[in-house]
Every structure is written in structure tokens, then in C-alpha cells.
């Protein structure tokens, strides 16, 4: 098992960094190029959503992005501090996109977990 943790301030300009780091890690464990595209978009949407939730709630804490590689499984956990009950700011488009892109998704309050597996 290996991985990395990235923490970013809740600012739109930092979302790209999370995308780049996640895709670099996904490439290293051998996800296909189509999967890399899905990781790029899904992680971008997940982190954008977290940033939007912090902005909506006037929260200044950092957002955590944990990248976990276990065997052939690649998991990204995005954790914000906005809790439950906050309405989706975009009518749920970001979550719908993430559901379409990540084979496994778990949303538990402030913790959004996305997973992919290598084909092999």
C-alpha cells in the first residue's frame, strides 16, 4: 500500500493541482488512458465540489485529498468540513458526473471516496 495526501486551501485555483497529482498517481499504477481521463474529471469535480461547499459555508479549513494505492485498486478520498445537509450548489451535476466516471463511489457526509481498479 502506498499513497499521498494533499491538502489545499478552499480556493478554485488549487483544484487543478489535485487533478494533476491524482492523474500522475493513477498513471503510475497502470490505469488505462480512458481511466486516467475519468480520474482527471471525477477528481476535479469532487475537489471543485468540496471547494464550493467550503465557500458556501464560509469555511476556511483546508480540503484533504488522500490518494491510496492498494494492489490494483486506486482510491481517492476527498474530505471537506462542510458536513451533511448542505444542498448541492449545482443541482447535483458534479455528483452525477462523478457517479458516471468512478466505478465505485461512496459519499458519507463530508467524505467522498472514489475508486478504480486496473484491468489486470
Amino acid at each position: 500500500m502506498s499513497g499521498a495526501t494533499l491538502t489545499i486551501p478552499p480556493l478554485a485555483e488549487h483544484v487543478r493541482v489535485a487533478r494533476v497529482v491524482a492523474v500522475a498517481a493513477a498513471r503510475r499504477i497502470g490505469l488505462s488512458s480512458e481511466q486516467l481521463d475519468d480520474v482527471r474529471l471525477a477528481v476535479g469535480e469532487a475537489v471543485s465540489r468540496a471547494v464550493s461547499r467550503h465557500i458556501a459555508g464560509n469555511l476556511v479549513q483546508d480540503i484533504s485529498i488522500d490518494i491510496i494505492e492498494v494492489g490494483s485498486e486506486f482510491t481517492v478520498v476527498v474530505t471537506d468540513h462542510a458536513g451533511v445537509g448542505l444542498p448541492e450548489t449545482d443541482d447535483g451535476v458534479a455528483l452525477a458526473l462523478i457517479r458516471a466516471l468512478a466505478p465505485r463511489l461512496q459519499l458519507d457526509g463530508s467524505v467522498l471516496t472514489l475508486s478504480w481498479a486496473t484491468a489486470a
Partner: protein
Amino acid sequence: MEIDVTTRQESGCTVVTVVGEVDVYTAPTLDEALSATLAEGNTCVVVDMTGVDFLDSTGLSVLVKALKRIREADGSLDVVVSVDRVAKVFRLTGLDKVIPLHAALADALDGDRADAPAANYDESITGGEA
């Protein structure tokens, strides 16, 4: 990374050319350019995204906002997309049924603008209503 958005007139339409990544940080730049174009009274608008290699839902929402204003003015909004992963975002959200997509700028300017929706409906997740 910044995006580069330029606007010009061609074949009676306003062509808005976007280069770079359109995301939550850069989408406001595209929004400003489209809003300025619409404020000038242009109702035939082609957004050329040939040079866009990443697009997220905030970028899409900017296009949807422009589309609403253009429809109110009986105009047309067409989008040129040549990168697969960018076209996929339109398909996944069903927006390809609402905004005509073209593979090349010439097609968008020559063709039946805003008459026919683009193909590839199979991956829609929103049922087609935007």
C-alpha cells in the same frame, strides 16, 4: 494554468475561441467573454473548443447560461469539440442533445447551425433535459 479566450467575427457569426483548461478557476473568464459577446447583441455564436483539453461541469454551466440567453434572442449556439475527453463531458451530461457539437469550425459555420442536435446520446445520464 490560465485559459486564453479570443473573440472574432466570421461568416456572420461570433467565434469565441478557447484554449486551455476550462474548470472552476478558469470558467469565469469564458463566462465574461460570452456575456460581453451577448451584451453586444450577437446571437449567432460559435464556441471553438478545439484547443480545450479539459472541461468540467462549471465550464458546461457557463455554456448553458449563454444558451439560455441566446435562445431568448432566437439565436444559435454551436460548439466545436475535437478532443474526445471534452466531447465525453457533453455526452455524459446529455448536453450534446441540447447544444450542437461539431468536429471542425468550418462545419459549425457552414452547416445547419442549431438545427440538429449532435449524435452520441448513448451515455446520457440526465435524460436529455437540460
